[in-house]
């Protein structure tokens, strides 16, 4: 669970007579990651294998099918109820593909031509529109023997209108009513230069006269007729395509999959080393499966293959196959989003799967929102089970919802942003609570009220505790990871752990043990005689230094940490010391998001409940609608920020303490069949 699956490096050697059968078997097994053979640095007698020839046509057919699927807009994530068998697909495959190609390509070609025509028509109409209000046939826009024509937009039209009469009165000016500042000016040719100069001064931009003859209005009408005709034709075509899609869609997907698999198998030898008569497959197999693979291959080939497991060398680039229980699997997705772990380090998926929802739930911290999250997560899982990403997110939401409900019920005593009971010492302002709204006493206490100053301080202290535990865990994992690699670095992490403890104690004493009221019940318990004299008193004994309480423990732990860091990491370690203080403070976001979300929900509740309790029934109904919308808004915003921040605490603060990443994923040779079945 904390380590990736153990892999064994295995070589399979055999005669080329068994090549195809071996590929077939490995493909079916789907647990072998083949290492690509590189010709560099090996015996010159070995050559890279050549693809198996028989399926050269298959790759062309795959291309045809893929382009058909694209043209038909087939949904490749589609879930099919009945998978096709190989026999069904291979029956007259070539013939079927040829007919399909003809049917689809002729239709799509017409579609493309019509689309192009439509585009041209739209363009032409757009050009004609500025001229539609001017009743001059298009052929008259060109220069005549004594008259020159200017067509274009004039930004500074007023100025031009003023100047033009002073140049000449031998002109005619037309205005377009459909486009701003567009004018057509007919003017005597002898004034051409002067008028052009004036036009340029008034920011004139020439417009190209559209091609065609006759009145623009008539042309537009004609073009619009053409357009609707093409539209009709296109509709018929898309109906035809829909028919083709319904008739052949599943076949296309299944055949594409079948042929892709064939191509994949045919191209497999490219990864092998070969001699004239034999082949060598170098591969990774999960250690627990080695015997099974060996037995299958030997049985099916009558012991014609030589199979040997090799020692893993330190320079081997071992692929990583994460090995987690089914409930943790969805969280591997979050790890992949960051980076795949390497083979030799601890796989933090399990920790991520526990602490990510814990933080998320802590920030939401509300029974009502928690239950809503569980419901939404369930809907995600049911509705979007074909999409792995959304399915995973659904899982996260459910687990986070459970944690949010627990925190909401036992720690915050909140339901949809309202506490079950009002805070004990309110000052003047009206604070709603479920108990006060229904005039009953709901016996669920809030240990922390998010909207009170003391509550916020308690939350901050809790966040620091969470940060301390989380970072310590990170440092301990870091020590475990580093112990084989470099004992110096492992000690460095130990030093940081001391410094972290020193900082945390300092913060506690400075916050005057805000949570000490929770320790009170412990005072009467059996552990009190042990806890106080040996634990709490020594840790909290402190001295005054320039107005601040500094616990002796902080000084002692800090000095020990500093010493270890200086010895193991040197001066650079001091930077890490500062960094760890920053990281610890960074966990206060747990409190900050929780309070911000709580305050937002509280404010919205005051607005909504105020409207509902107004007395007027219509305003009351509006209040209900407003409240529902606002509550959903709080939930959406709160979940988004909580999710991102919980993830960030892992990626940045936690992972920086131990995680290297950059591993290569284990990719078994095989194919995940969606549309076909070998049975």
């Amino acid at each position, binding site marked *: 669970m904390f380590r990736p699956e153990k892999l064994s490096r295995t070589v399979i050697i055999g005669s080329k007579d068994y090549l195809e059968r071996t590929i077939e078997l490995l493909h079916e097994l789907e647990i072998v990651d083949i290492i690509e053979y590189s010709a560099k640095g090996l015996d010159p007698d070995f050559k890279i294998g050549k693809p198996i020839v028989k399926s050269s046509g298959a790759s062309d057919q795959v291309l045809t099918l893929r382009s058909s699927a694209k043209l038909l807009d087939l949904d490749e994530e589609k879930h099919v109820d009945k998978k096709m068998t190989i026999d069904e697909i291979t029956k007259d495959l070539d013939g079927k593909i040829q007919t399909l190609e003809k049917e689809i390509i002729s239709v799509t070609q017409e579609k493309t031509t019509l689309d192009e025509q439509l585009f041209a028509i739209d363009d032409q109409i757009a050009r004609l529109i500025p001229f539609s209000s001017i009743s001059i046939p298009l052929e008259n826009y060109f220069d005549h023997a004594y008259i020159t024509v200017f067509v274009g937009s004039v930004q500074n039209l007023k100025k031009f209108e003023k100047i033009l009469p002073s140049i000449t009165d031998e002109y005619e000016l037309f205005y377009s009513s459909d486009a701003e500042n567009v004018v057509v000016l007919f003017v005597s040719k002898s004034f051409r230069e002067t008028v052009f100069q004036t036009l340029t001064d008034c920011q004139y931009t020439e417009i190209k006269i559209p091609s065609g003859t006759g009145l623009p209005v008539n042309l537009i009408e004609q073009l619009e007729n053409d357009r609707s005709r093409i539209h009709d034709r296109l509709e018929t075509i898309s109906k035809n395509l829909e028919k083709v899609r319904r008739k052949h869609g599943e076949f296309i997907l299944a055949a594409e999959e079948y042929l892709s698999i064939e191509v994949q198998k045919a191209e497999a030898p490219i990864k092998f080393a070969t001699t004239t008569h034999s082949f060598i497959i170098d591969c990774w197999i999960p250690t627990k499966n080695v015997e099974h693979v060996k037995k299958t291959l030997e049985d099916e080939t009558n012991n014609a293959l030589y199979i040997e497991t090799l020692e893993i060398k330190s320079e081997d680039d071992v692929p990583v196959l994460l090995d987690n229980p089914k409930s943790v699997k969805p969280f591997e997705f979050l790890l992949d989003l960051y980076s795949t772990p390497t083979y030799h380090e601890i796989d933090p998926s399990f920790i991520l799967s526990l602490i990510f929802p814990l933080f998320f739930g802590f920030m939401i911290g509300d029974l009502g929102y928690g239950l809503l999250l569980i419901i939404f997560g369930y809907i995600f899982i049911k509705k979007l089970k074909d999409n792995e990403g959304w399915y995973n997110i659904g899982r996260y939401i459910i687990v986070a919802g459970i944690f949010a409900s627990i925190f909401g019920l036992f720690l915050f005593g909140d339901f949809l942003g309202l506490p079950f009971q009002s805070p004990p010492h309110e000052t003047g302002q009206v604070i709603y609570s479920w108990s006060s709204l229904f005039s009953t006493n709901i016996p669920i206490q809030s240990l922390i009220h998010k909207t009170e*100053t003391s509550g916020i301080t308690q939350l*901050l202290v809790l966040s620091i505790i969470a940060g301390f535990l989380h970072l310590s865990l990170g440092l301990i994992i870091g020590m475990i990871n580093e112990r084989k690699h470099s004992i110096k670095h492992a000690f460095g992490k130990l030093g940081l752990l001391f410094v972290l403890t020193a900082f945390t104690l300092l913060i506690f004493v400075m916050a005057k043990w805000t949570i000490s009221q929770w320790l009170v019940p412990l005072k009467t318990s059996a552990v009190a005689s042990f806890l106080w004299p040996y634990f709490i008193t020594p840790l909290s004994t402190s001295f005054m230094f320039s107005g601040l309480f500094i616990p002796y423990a902080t000084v002692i732990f800090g000095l020990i940490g500093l010493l270890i860091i200086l010895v193991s990491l040197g001066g650079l370690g001091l930077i890490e010391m500062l960094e760890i203080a920053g990281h610890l*403070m*960074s966990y*206060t*976001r747990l409190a*900050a998001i929780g309070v911000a979300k709580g305050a937002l929900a509280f404010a919205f509740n005051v607005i909504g409940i105020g409207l509902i309790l107004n007395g007027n029934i219509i305003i009351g109904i509006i209040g209900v609608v407003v409240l529902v919308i606002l509550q959903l808004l709080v939930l959406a915003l709160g979940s988004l920020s909580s999710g991102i*921040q919980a993830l960030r605490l892992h990626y*940045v603060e936690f992972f920086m303490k131990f995680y290297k990443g950059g591993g290569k994923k284990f990719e078994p040779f095989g194919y995940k069949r969606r549309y076909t079945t070998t049975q």
Partner: protein
Amino acid sequence: MVAAEAEGLIAIAAGLSIGISAIATAWAQKEIGTAAVGATAENDKMFGRGLMYMVIPETIVLFGLVIAFMLLSKIT
């Protein structure tokens, strides 16, 4: 407990500490956000990574928040 005038000044200081640090965060996020969106446009896989980079400067505003609370605790 501090005098009434000092209380006002402390409250202003708390407001400034969170306000100015929020501006600093926003400034940093502006720069990172631009680059992250650019990277996402080129490669969809960068979305998750970009989102993470995006929230990194939020630590700055958290420091402001913590200082604000430390200041406020002097008043009440």
